[in-house]
């Protein structure tokens, strides 16, 4: 395993690097086509489906899965679970990278990306929920960057700057939670404007609440999932402090996630009751809704509980994957499957190859940057000079 990240020049041609390289090359080619030929040249988007996989996966899933940043930070700094401290840095790094990639993906998706600052700096459409999302993502990205900077400064050895920033941690964390709450929920609220297009089983006035609550579960699960991945591939970067606390983090997060998923399931049921949508369950869409609710919400909640009780780390890890998948399924359902449910199947959208390439490309870029940062900067370990200073 350690051969993968061998710094030796000769071993650069590892399978990992080859695949990564190919994806990046393909991504760059499609990028050129996208920005010279327009959206129509690379996507299957049409007038019925103005939002495709780039919004469903890169934006909705990306933002939800990057929720680990604010949940971990809040757990550690606000709720005082000090033993999670070692998990904060990887989570914040992931979140920062996640949001940066979301913004990068948006450059592909919007028609005129150079105007992305317009809603904030030129003309503000404050009645739009997308405005709120944009503003929050913009601010939160800044916050995450500031939260991440100490890591960079420690690496570079800029002590004064680092100390000044660390003092602001609490403010940044609370600000981050506020912003995250807002834009996580607003992503769901985006769809409240189109009750006629979203299938009644997924449409609800509670959509923002659903999105927010499920984002917590997504964030916690992502931290568990990434932790296990990092353990496998970046083990040598971890100090004993990180490793000692890792099990506590996993168990605590598993319990928390189980609890949140239980709440999420209950909320979804309330939403169903409130709109009296039970009759829709007896249809094709209803079956799919039940699959989502039972296999991707109820089941992980139960498995997490069992895993936490038995201290079964393998089960927790697999459940984390299941939960993450569940969130992805949910976001795809809202934005693609149940969206335009009234259209005949031949008018339905399916992503084009080049759209998928760009999505994979962006994820790959994220992984590469994460590896670059975490193998150099004090992410999984405490910088020897700053031990115990937090």
């Amino acid at each position, binding site marked *: 395993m350690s051969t993968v990240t061998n710094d030796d020049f000769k071993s650069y041609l590892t399978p990992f690097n080859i695949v990564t390289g190919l994806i990046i090359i393909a991504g760059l080619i499609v990028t050129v086509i996208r920005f010279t030929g327009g959206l129509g040249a690379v996507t299957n988007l049409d007038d019925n489906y103005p939002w495709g996989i780039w919004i469903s996966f890169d934006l909705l899933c990306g933002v939800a899965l990057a929720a680990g940043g604010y949940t971990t930070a809040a757990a550690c700094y606000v709720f005082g679970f000090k033993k999670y401290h070692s998990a904060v840095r990887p989570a914040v790094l992931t979140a920062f990278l996640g949001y940066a990639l979301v913004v990068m993906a948006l450059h592909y998706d919007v028609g005129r990306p150079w105007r992305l600052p317009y809603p904030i700096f030129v003309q503000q459409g404050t009645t739009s929920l997308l405005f709120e999302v944009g503003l929050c993502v913009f601010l939160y990205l800044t916050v995450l960057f500031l939260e991440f900077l100490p890591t960079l400064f420690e690496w570079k050895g800029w002590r004064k700057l680092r100390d000044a920033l660390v003092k602001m941690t609490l403010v940044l964390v609370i600000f981050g939670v506020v912003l995250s709450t807002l834009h996580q929920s607003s992503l769901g609220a985006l769809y409240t404007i189109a009750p006629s297009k979203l299938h009644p089983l997924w449409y609800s006035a509670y959509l923002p609440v659903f999105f927010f609550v499920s984002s917590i579960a997504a964030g916690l699960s992502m931290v568990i999932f990434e932790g296990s991945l990092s353990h496998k591939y970046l083990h040598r970067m971890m100090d004993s402090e990180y490793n000692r606390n890792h099990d506590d983090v996993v168990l605590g997060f598993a319990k928390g996630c189980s609890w949140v998923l239980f709440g999420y399931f209950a909320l979804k049921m309330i939403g169903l009751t409130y709109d009296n949508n039970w009759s829709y369950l*007896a249809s094709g869409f209803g*079956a799919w809704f039940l699959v989502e609710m039972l*296999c991707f919400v109820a*089941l992980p909640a139960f498995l997490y509980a*069992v895993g936490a009780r*038995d201290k079964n780390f393998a089960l927790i890890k697999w459940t984390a994957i299941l939960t993450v998948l569940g969130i992805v399924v949910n976001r795809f359902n809202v934005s693609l499957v149940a969206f335009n449910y009234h259209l005949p199947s031949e008018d339905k959208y399916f992503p084009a190859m080049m759209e998928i390439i760009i999505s994979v490309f962006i994820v790959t870029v994220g992984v590469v940057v994460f590896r670059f940062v975490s193998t150099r900067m004090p992410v999984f370990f405490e910088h020897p000079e700053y031990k115990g200073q937090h």
Partner: protein
Amino acid sequence: MAYRKLVLGLSGCLFVLVCVLFLQADVMSMISSSGKDSGRADLIMIQAMAKQTTKQASAVQFLHDAHTQALAEQDKDCAACHIKDESGTISYKYMRLEDPAANRLKDLYHDNCTACHAENAKARMDNPGPQIGECRKCHVEPATSTQAWVSGGMDNILHYIHWDSDLIAKDEGKDTNCGQCHHEYDEDKQELVYIQFAEEGCRSCHTSEPKEPVKANLAEAFHGQCVTCHLENKETQAERNGPLDCASCHGGPQRLEMQAKFAEKLEEMDGVLPRLPRQQPDVVLLAAKLPERSKDATHPTLMYPVPFNHELHEQATDACRDCHHETLKSSCTDCHTLQGSEQGGYITLERAMHAPDSKSSCVGCHNEMKQDPSCAGCHAAMPQGTEPPASSCALCHVNPDILSQRSMERQSVDYTDYTEMLIPAQASGRQPAGEPVVIPEDKEGRVVLAHQLIIDRRGQEALLIAEEDIPNVVKIDVLADEYQPAELPHRKIVMSMMEKMQDNSLATTFHATPVTMCQGCHHNSPLSAEPPSCQTCHDQRSQEGRLGRPGLLAAYHIQCMSCHTEMGLEKPAATDCTSCHKQKEN
């Protein structure tokens, strides 16, 4: 691990559930309607236990005609399943005259049905029918057939075929046979008697829930009466007998077929059906019954009475009950009084005659006639509203004085005096000052008045101004821009419409002046042989100020196209511009 089994089990259950849901998804989302036949007239749902609180087995779908046919092949008839009462009337019910208790009824069906089927099996028939033990062959669920059933009433021509028939015995000492079906209950004698010229429609007494002393409900009465007689005819091998199966009377397609056959028959009789021998009046003077009042009370002003050609309307309606919807024994004004009465459901005389959407009212029926393609071209475009237009009042409520003043010369070129007819009605429908018209109190007097003064004077053929006065071709060129001017074959259109209303007494009566018909197109203008140009009202330039009134371009198109559509003229297609105005050649 303590929970491995539990987790595996639960996951397994979920997986199975998912699979089931996926497989079932299509079934669940489908509305099950396909796979059934289009509906049968002879389907009877037998549910003997329906009166019980607990349902025991699903209802039996009994296909009556299938059984009738099977019995006929075995040289059996209705009597195989239906018994006759002491008077020889066949019972509408299966193997019984009266309904026993539910349990006994169940046994009755089970015993008799299976007994017959068992015999069939013994006789080695191809399809003996379900045997004992094959419960689900009869008690099928869900239903595989649907009921489709039309009312099998007697219309005028079917009625004629019966009373004209030699196969039906004549009444004692008379040359009619009405008494064979029509009857009345004599309370003194406690029996059914026949009184000539006082025949009543069956539905008056035999309602769906008849009151004492009437015993049979509508279905029982009709089936008892009709089927018994048809069966007798069959038994005596008369030259023909009426239908003994369900579909002939109650099947939609069969009914249509029968009507087509009758229409042919009517054609043979020159379209005139002999009148019923019930001594009904030829003409009636419809006038409101005045409420009782003291001698010195002021006499109210009333609308002029309406002379009504009963004979003509007998031909135009399907059955007596189209108008006489409750009974034949009283007149309209008995129940529908000026103020409304409980008997008449508080429907006033005015509503009863003018309700635009009722099938029994004059206006309602006439409105329905206007939907005929020959009429609809003009009439569909005319705003109806909830009331008939005031100008039409005087067409029915005729002032005898004015008629008597008018010259008897019908073909007068000068038609201006026709408009005078409208005047008294237009003044809020009240009588003009002067001597009120005296309406005779006695029936004969009224009939005479109706005859002499009004009905005899009504036109027998449609009125129209002289053909040469009708512009031949009208060139519409005011808008010619993209296309060449359109040439409207004006006279041809008028004459073809005249042809269509040639034999239509409704049209000849109501198109009361030679220029009435012009108003189909030249609407909203005074009666005149030279109506004002369309542009007078239809201004092309601006939409403002004429909201909802079409501009000239649209006025022409709407007029022509909607008329063509309503009259069912396929050519020219509305979107085929060049068929009316040729493309301009540049």
